[in-house]
């Protein structure tokens, strides 16, 4: 860099900002080197090894034996594999779709109703309360809820006290209620994130916009649809992308709450891979499952980035 600056452009021709910026590329690459090297060692190489292992049969000791695509054909015939992805689809609903929709409504109620009719202090207190589960380690939230849902736990005691004794059951141990319970807990964990994101996004909105709409006779619902949803579009993409990807990676909740059970009623790909790796010593099979997860998550990531950039350029036009 210093060399370029010393040589400098001939006097009289003043470099524009763009020209000068282009100049500044030499010497800076070295700052990128540690990050790139570490990323290769910790991410790229293991990822490549994982894909390679997915074409082998390997118990984790000795030499992996090349078996071509047999792990994948086995997967596609494995009922557990399909079940785990069906559960993931439900988890996307519970972690991405439902919290986003509820979060949008809650954020709008807090921002455009509670803050105005009560106080912005009460609105931000509600927001904090909703956000609290987000700060807990997921594993710890799992412990909290598995305790509450014990057969002699607080949820059943509450149901009995409320005269709803028919609801009493072993929530996480009953194959019919295990998955719905896990999904409910996920909504509880996740809801605060969209609320905080959307309320932050709404800070950008000109309050006069709401007032003008109100004066024109727009009701709350109309203001919500026409202003709120439109204004938080950037946040909407970020929330949907991050929560969908988090849903595809679900592990800790299932590990703590059900270990995939009862039977395989709450099995998810992540736990399925973990089990193949470390309990069944079926490393090739686990690698195949996790390789499919990687592919799926990268596809979701790319789709969202493209949607977002398209929305960005449209917004700018």
């Amino acid at each position: 860099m210093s060399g370029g600056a010393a040589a400098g452009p001939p006097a009289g021709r003043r470099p524009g900002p763009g020209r000068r910026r282009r100049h500044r590329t030499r010497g800076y690459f070295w700052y990128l080197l540690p990050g790139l090297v570490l990323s290769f060692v910790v991410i790229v190489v293991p990822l490549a090894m994982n894909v390679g292992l997915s074409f082998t049969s390997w118990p984790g000791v000795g030499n992996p034996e090349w078996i071509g695509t047999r792990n994948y054909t086995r997967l596609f015939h494995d009922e557990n594999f399909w079940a785990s992805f069906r559960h993931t689809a439900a988890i996307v609903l519970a972690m991405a779709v439902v919290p986003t929709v509820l979060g949008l409504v809650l954020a709008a109620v807090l921002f455009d109703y509670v803050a105005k009719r009560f106080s912005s202090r009460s609105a931000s207190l509600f927001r904090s309360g909703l956000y609290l589960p987000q700060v807990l380690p997921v594993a710890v939230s799992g412990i909290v809820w598995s305790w509450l849902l014990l057969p002699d736990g607080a949820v059943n005691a509450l149901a009995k006290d409320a005269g709803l004794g028919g609801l009493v059951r072993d929530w996480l141990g009953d194959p019919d209620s295990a998955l719905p319970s896990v999904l409910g807990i996920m909504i509880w964990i996740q809801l605060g994130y969209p609320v905080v994101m959307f309320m932050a996004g709404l800070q950008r909105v000109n309050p006069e916009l709401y007032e003008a709409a109100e004066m024109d006779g727009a009701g709350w619902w109309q203001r919500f649809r026409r202003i709120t949803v439109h204004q938080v579009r950037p946040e909407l993409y970020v929330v949907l992308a991050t929560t969908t990807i988090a849903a595809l990676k679900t592990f800790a909740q299932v590990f703590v709450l059900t270990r995939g059970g009862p039977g395989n009623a709450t099995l998810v790909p992540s736990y399925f891979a973990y089990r193949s790796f470390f309990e069944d010593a079926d490393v090739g099979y686990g690698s195949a499952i996790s390789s499919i997860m990687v592919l799926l998550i990268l596809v979701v990531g790319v789709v969202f980035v493209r949607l977002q950039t398209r929305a960005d350029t449209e917004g700018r036009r």
Partner: protein
Amino acid sequence: MTAVTRPVTGSVAPDSAPPAPAPPSVRRRRRGPMAYVVFGVLVAVMALFLGPLLIVAINSFKSASDFAAHGPLALPHGWHLSTITRFWKRVDFGTKLINSLEISLAVSVLGVVLALLNSYAIGIGRVRGRALFLVFFLMVNVVPQEGLVYPLYYLAKQVNLYDSKIAVIIIFTVIQSAFGTYLLSSVLAEFPTELIEAAEIDGANSWRTLTRIVLPMSWPTLSVMFTFFFIWTWNEFFLPLVFLISNDNQTVPVALAVLQGQHSMDVTATSASALLGVLPALLFFLVFQRTLTRGIAAGALK
């Protein structure tokens, strides 16, 4: 960060007259009965969100016989600390706290440093192919750990880093800094060019420019990143579960989760374990609340 620092142009009054005493947007509306219904619903939602933690906390102070006699919803007949202290000693909770603290602190410091170096090259150095590098770092952050875990486990064993905090620190430093790079690069891309140029004219080399100008001026963003890296790392579960198997190395979430599956845990001990897991997080939440909300707003728009 840009989203936070950008002034909200709409709210600025067009004339420069002193602010009116009560602009219409601030005036409180009338509250009809509907308003109280909405408020009541929100209070109920709050109860659903905070109640579970409260019930867990209450039961941690009960003796086992108290729980057996009166169930989970009654207030304790006499507040016992013994359930909590016994559980604390049994899992050696102090050690787990220190382990979690060590790992999270190391990752957040190193992660911020690495993210700063990367973003300095991308955002200010504008190295060739910077858009591709950004996509690369985004992918590094997004890739599921399940797709790395076995090779990492195998490699760590080869170099004697299995069951060591160092391996976990290195891995999470890379993963968190990748997100930090993505965030900070766009912040640094809008760094005032004049300041960099002035430093260059004064003869500062790029390292000096980084440490004397860019670093001090990016402090607010870096502190938000630090907070997030700390909490994210504290809450991590999957890789620490695989990598930290000995009692001396386990983090708080891993130790609690592993114990939870054991039959020797009675009901009140489990609630004590949940409470001990909740408390540090609650502390961070209260300490960092402002940074968190500020940071989330920043992350929203990169």
